[in-house]
């Protein structure tokens, strides 16, 4: 187990370097000038040149190496930078550094994502177990139907509907912004519903397979109570596919969703994945991509470790 962790952690910088290089090439290839005002006003060419030099945007080669040095902290060790792990100033939100943007947004996205994942697990596993234990029953059909709706309805529809009902009609929650549970409930539910639907389906099929397995029949023959069979034995095995889904799902949910953050005006980092690219904000693109990649790699590692813990047969 520790060998796996060490190996993955050693591999991580290499993976991140490849991601950095590919992202840089793609981002640099976006046409246009990130410092340009989209409304079309052009500063005089000499001012634009000064701006490009100020941000080291005059040459891709210098930018690539300078940025790499700043992000990794090498420049700081060599004494040419003020601080380590510096993602640089955002090119569009000029008063903010990418570190500040990530520092302000990532905790929000992570909190919201974690809340959504927990909610999704609670709803999804319950529904999946109920359906999987008695396939074909009315309860099973109901959960399948709800799961189908949850998967098919896009979150901008669910989100807007929730906002109109609970925000405008019932005045139960404030609209837009962040701070306090009342702001977090609707976005968490919106984010959780499609995940819950997916988890419910995974759990249901897992449970169906397990409930007809030999060890369940043996347990029943020994007189073990049904609840103990379901929760203590079958669920543990049925949970494995859910677990492998949870890694990437958690990474995705915790780095924010563009749609949910936009609809509910959540100050996370989800919207940057789209807006930074549209604005060709190179430093911000690199920042969010590297943050997301790191989280994804770590979560996959956590899932792999958890897998071995739940099912010791794997990887031995």
């Amino acid at each position, binding site marked *: 187990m520790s060998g796996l962790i060490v190996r993955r952690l050693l591999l991580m910088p290499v993976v991140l370097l490849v991601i950095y290089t590919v992202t840089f090439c793609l981002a640099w290839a976006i046409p246009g000038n990130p410092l340009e005002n989209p409304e079309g006003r052009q*500063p005089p060419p000499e001012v634009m040149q*000064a701006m490009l030099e100020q941000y080291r945007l005059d040459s891709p080669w210098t930018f690539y190496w300078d940025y790499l040095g700043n992000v990794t902290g090498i420049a700081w060790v060599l004494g040419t930078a003020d601080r380590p792990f510096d993602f640089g100033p955002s090119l569009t939100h000029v*008063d903010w550094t990418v570190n500040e*943007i990530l520092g302000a947004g990532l905790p929000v996205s992570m909190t919201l994502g*974690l809340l959504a994942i927990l909610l999704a697990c609670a709803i999804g596993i319950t529904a999946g177990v109920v359906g999987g234990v008695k396939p074909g029953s009315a309860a099973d059909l109901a959960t399948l139907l709800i799961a189908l709706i949850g998967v098919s309805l896009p979150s901008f529809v669910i989100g807007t509907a929730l906002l109109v009902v609970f925000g405008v009609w019932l005045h139960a929650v404030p609209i837009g*912004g*962040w701070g306090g549970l009342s702001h977090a409930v609707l976005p968490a539910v919106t984010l959780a519903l499609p995940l819950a639907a997916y988890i419910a389906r995974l759990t249901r099929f897992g449970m169906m397979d397990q409930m007809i397995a030999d060890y369940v029949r043996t347990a029943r023959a020994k007189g073990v109570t049904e609840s103990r069979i379901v929760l203590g034995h079958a669920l543990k095995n049925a949970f494995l596919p859910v677990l492998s889904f949870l890694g990437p799902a958690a990474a995705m949910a915790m780095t924010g969703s563009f749609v949910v953050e936009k609809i509910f*005006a959540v*100050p996370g980092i989800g919207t940057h994945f789209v807006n930074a690219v549209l604005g060709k904000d190179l430093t911000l693109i690199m920042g969010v991509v590297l943050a997301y990649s790191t989280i994804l790699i770590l979560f996959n590692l956590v899932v792999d470790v958890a897998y071995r813990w739940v099912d010791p047969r794997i990887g031995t």
Partner: protein
Amino acid sequence: MKLLAPLVALVGALATVICLDDTPADADLVFVNASEVFTLDPQRMTWMQDLRMAYCLYEGLVRWNNDDFSIEAAAATSWTISEDRRTYTFRLRPDARWSNGDPVTAHDFVYSWKRAILPDTAAQYSSLFMVIDGAASFFRWRTEALADFARETAGLGTPQRRDRAQALWDETERRFAATVSLEADDRLTLRVRLARPTPYFLDLVAFGVFCPVHRGTVEGFSRLDPATGRLHQRHGWTKPTHLVGNGPYVLASWRYKRGLYLEANRLYHSPAIVQSPTVACVSIEDINTAVLAFESGRIDWLSDVSTEYQADMLAQRLAYESKHAPRIEAGLAAGRSLDEVLADLPAPGRGERRDIHIFPAFGTDFYSFNCRPHLTDGRDNPFANAGVRRAFVMSVDKNAIVRHVTRLNEPIVTTLIPPGSIPGYRSPNGLGYDPVGARGSLAAAGWADRDGDGIIENERGEPFPVIDLLYSSNGSRYRNISLALRDMWQRELGVRVELRGKETKFFREDLRRGNFMIGRGGWYGDYGDPTTFLDLCRTGNGNNVRGYSSPRVDELLRLADDELDPRARMALLAECERFLVTEEVPMLFLCQYVQLYMYEPGRLTGLSRHPRLTQYLWKMKSRG
């Protein structure tokens, strides 16, 4: 079961984290900007929402009366202008203080304006400061000196570079003092000499980028970069704990994508002008959510309602107005404002609303003709001929466009400068809708339907090239207008038009390269003088994407530059615009831009209706 305890702990921790994240406090005035505030550094501002903040946090020498755009005293109490209209001497208020208690002095203005001129700051609006005598040559000198620095110090170690950068900076300071005519005669007297008489100089000085910054604070975040020799200025000083201003408000909090809170500045010299002691600028990026937030009663003012359904909202407003037309007319006749009259009417019923308001703005929506002799692929460009351009302008029914396509009923225009937006200037009349005249003009330019097949040809029988109509594909406005234009031109002129919608960045790239025949344009003015629009047509202007060049326009603008008599100057500029809008038409002017606001009439007061649409937040008040 053993998982339950850590799960409960996790949920508890999450709930605590969310609850501890402080909820925004209520404010006397709550509004939503069109987009995030980008910077609070006045010298680097370009966006309207940023400048709106500049007028709260800082105070320039003078400011506009935002109802008629006359000039009022602000940080300066008085000013004198020399005989040759080139030297301005400002006398500052003795009682003005920075928010940390320091006195506001003429030296602060010298420092701030120098920042804007320095290429190191790369201020987008630095060109406005080039009216100051010596500023342009100083900018060029420093730019070249920095380029030389990079060449000469290649291969040197960091300590030597640092010394060289310092020596260059000392030389820069000396040069600025010697060559740029911007001086503090004493603590309270600022003297500026301009390169040439600039009748709109006071209007420029009222613009946000001319606001002062607190020298000590900014210098704390500046250092010389040994790698490039530049003065490197970090932006951390604009954050709440650091920012020092001299305006009616101070920055209480600014959190990224959450909002910005202002509190009345206790050290401001005229606290009575501040109508709302606290102001909250809430960040809601999605306009649909912002409209919902407004409808839930949380927001006093939405400053840009650019929803896809804005035309439907306006239709609801019209329905409400027509239902109460007699009472509205009576109220207006009695001299009351429209907002006051609306506030006294019964609440809107189903399908009606009175909280959406249309404000004509200081900008013109137009389409650009590519005026270069050849297209990027080397073909001859038919639009290089002014007669062809006139034909394309005259065959467009703009009324139909604003009524049925944009459905916003914007004021249609035939000129570049929005009518009535600049005191002392009257725009001439441009070309109206005249399809018959259009076909005549096209025939005179050598294009006519010679074989009766409905398609026009030149003398050699070659059909008119298929027109490449370029527009930006974000939002539906320009796609719809472009479709309407295509139909009108095909119907009236017998030409074929192909639409090319591109995402903004690609669109701009094509515009810059001249890869279009007709392209979506538009312009907002910066200052209260016709040149803020007419400069677009100067040969070689950076915003002249049309590649338009006319010796006569250049000459008229040059004459106006040198003209001392304000009326004679305005006459020259009017002649320049007349020539542009009736003879040369490098653009097809469609309509004046409008801004849609949302507020409850009678509840929010203090908004300016002048087309320049500069709203001073300190003038605004909500009756909650």
